[in-house]
């Protein structure tokens, strides 16, 4: 029936809600409650609303605290060991004499290093071959062969101009003083240290960072002094604390 359609525009519960609610402008439609009832209802509703609003503030505060701890974790850098100021003589890695040498040591399974590789790819793309870059996948003692070839390996091998090598038992890492995944080193063609540190702005956070900017300047020789930066990543071989605090 047409009439039932029209009248069913407001069903009983909705109509009751409309007739009693005042929280969308204070309009009371339909059967007018008495003033006393109205006041009582308003006070009860106010109390209920206050409770929920208070609860909302607690909720927001709780979530804010959690987010604070999350951000503190993401912005807490890993440990850094002393870095040799010259290219390690014992390194089996060849020093490229014609251009700066960029070395990044990574943990093959570290999820935060994905951001480091992304930044590295960005640096290489911008340097346009002015830097000899290599990434060392550190295979700790006890790891089986091929353990290092995960998704990070695939990501690294896909970056043009990047040499991907395995650092068996972390020998090279120790030579360069790297204990945290993503630790990068930039040496001049003559083997002098130009930069040591991470290239991401926070743990696992890609995007513009001061380190990336500095490396780009060093490669283009617009910057000469030694720069350092915080490293955000997993511990390469264990034993050293690389993970930031909560």
């Amino acid at each position: 029936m047409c009439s039932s359609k029209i009248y069913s525009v407001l069903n009983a519960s909705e109509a009751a809600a409309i007739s009693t609610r005042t929280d969308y402008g204070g309009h009371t439609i339909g059967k007018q409650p008495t003033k006393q009832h109205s006041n009582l209802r308003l006070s009860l509703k106010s109390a209920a609303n206050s409770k929920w609003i208070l609860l909302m503030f607690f909720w927001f505060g709780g979530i804010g605290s959690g987010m604070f701890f999350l951000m503190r974790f993401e912005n807490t850098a890993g440990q850094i060991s002393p870095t040799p100021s010259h290219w390690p003589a014992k390194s089996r890695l060849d020093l490229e004499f014609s251009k700066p040498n960029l070395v990044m040591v990574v943990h093959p399974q570290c999820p935060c290093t994905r951001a480091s590789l992304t930044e590295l790819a960005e640096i290489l793309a911008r340097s346009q071959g002015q830097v000899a870059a290599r990434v060392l996948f550190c295979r700790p003692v006890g790891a089986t062969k091929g353990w290092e070839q995960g998704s990070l390996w695939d990501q690294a091998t896909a970056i043009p101009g990047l040499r991907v090598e395995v650092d068996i038992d972390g020998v090279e890492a120790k030579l360069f003083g790297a204990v945290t995944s993503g630790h990068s080193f930039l040496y001049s063609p003559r083997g002098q240290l130009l930069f040591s540190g991470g290239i991401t702005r926070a743990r696992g956070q890609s995007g513009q960072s001061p380190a990336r900017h500095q490396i780009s300047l060093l490669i283009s020789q617009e910057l000469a002094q030694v720069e350092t930066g915080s490293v955000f990543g997993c511990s390469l071989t264990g034993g050293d604390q690389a993970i930031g605090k909560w």
Partner: protein
Amino acid sequence: MSREIVSATAKDPALRVEAVFRHQQQNIFRQTDRLFAGLMLFQWLACIVAAFWISPKTWTGLSSAVHPHLWAAVIIGGGIVSFPVILAFTRPGTPLTRHAVAVGQMLCSALLIHVTGGRIETHFHVFGSLAFLAFYRDWRVLISGSVVVALDHFLRGLYWPESVYGTVLASQWRWLEHGAWVIFEDVFLIKSCIKGEVEMWEIAERQAQLEASHATVEQNLLVLRESEARKAAILESALDCVITIDHCGRIVEFNPAAEATFGYSRAEVLGQELAEKLIPPTLRYAHRNDFANYLATGHGPGIGRRVEMTSMHASGREFPVELSISVVQLDGPPLFTAYLRDLTDRKRVEAEREELNHQLLETSRRVGMADVATSVLHNVGNVLNSVNVSAGLVISTLRQSPYQDVGRISKLLEEHADDLGSYLRVDPKGRQIPAYLAKLAGHFEEQHLQAGRELQSLDQQIEHIKQIISMQQNVARSRGLREPIVLKEVMEQALSINTAGLGRHQVEVVREYSEVPEVMIDKHQVLQILVNLISNAKHAMNQADGLRRLTLRVGMETSTGVVRLEVQDTGVGIKPEYLTRIFGQGFTTKSDGHGFGLHSGALAAKTMNGTLIAESDGEGCGAIFRLELPLHAVEAIA
């Protein structure tokens, strides 16, 4: 409840618009709350999956542990969505829920950005979320969401500027730049929300108008339905047949009375031609002709009046019906409604009644003739009494006449014809003859006069008999001849008719006559009444002892315009219980009476627009009979 609201707000269209607007707004709020509840649960799940996919573990050499991002996705993400989702299910449509959803949605964005490693692409979640929040069409929630974004950037810029802006040298107002892009979107979304509210209000106005129109239509429809129901009830309960045909002569309505009368069910005749089904074959051609003629000219023989015709039952039996046809002129071709009644029973009853009336008339005629005969005989009988008396007197006079003495004298004179002179002078017998003859002559003269009077009376009585008969004939013709009369003379005439009887019974007659003008009245009806009254008085006094006095009065009352003729006697009187019955037909106190005189007198008085009244103080107190007649004076009439 909803009807109450509709009816309450229907009185005030603005209230109704407000109600519809709020209702629609509530619907949108509730639907969007539910949408976000589902979306947030999905986002939570997506966040966990993303964390698990991107950074499931954190490593230390060969050792691994659950990555904090995964814990954050589960715990913080759960915390973020729980509050808005609970509100969406427990307090849908409330502002608190909407704002909690907005805050939660922005926190979801932040968490997703963290979990996905700060990817630029994930930042689109913020702008997408704002667009989703615009579904509420409440610009305030956009403010809440935007404040959360701005607060996030402000705090992170304050404590970890490098992680937000990629540089430690960012300005302390850099968060405003990020917030500006959100505001940029907000401006358009807020405008869109406001426009949406305006459109919703316009829709509410249209809906309120539609509802008002619909209510009117509904009301009209209700009235129409009631009217239809009443019409249907009338049709269903009508005792007369109601048959409607269209312009093609096809039956479109056939009520139960028609079903009973014609022996067809409604389904059998609907759509069928009326002529084919209900009209005898011999009349169909004429009917179709008349019908076609009406459609062509607008004139037809049966339209708007009652006619009798012959119709046909389903069995083929023909029967008489009374029919009236009215034309229903609506849009399009006309409809014709026939109201029809089976006359079979009525015709039969009419025939029976006709026969009964005929029998009744015959019986009445016979009874009337008997009444007339009785009346005539009664009145004539009264007069005949007087005739008898007069005739007896004449006979007695003639018998006592000494006509034989004339013969004897004649014989003596013949015997003494030779000496007639001496016989008359000398003979003692002869000397008595002249004196005797003179005495005889005187006697004969007296007898002649007496016989002449009696014969004159006899002639009057015979004339009265003739008038009685004539009057009865006039009565039979319903009205008598009115003529100017002097009431005293009529009274005297009635008295004279009864004179002989009164004389025999030694009744003293007293006359009290007032001056009354001549009146126009039927003389013989008045005379008949008075004769009867005097005769009755004579009989009443004959049965009583003591004084026998008959008082006759003639008078009038000018104020009421009535003339009175009274006959009072000193007879046996009337018992009180008889006073009410005395004018009834057949009632009499006389041993030889018929109970007709007073009855016919009362009827005659009534015929003359008068009344006949009887008064008596009881048995032995005499009685008064008063005839009151309207005073139609001759002068007045002239």
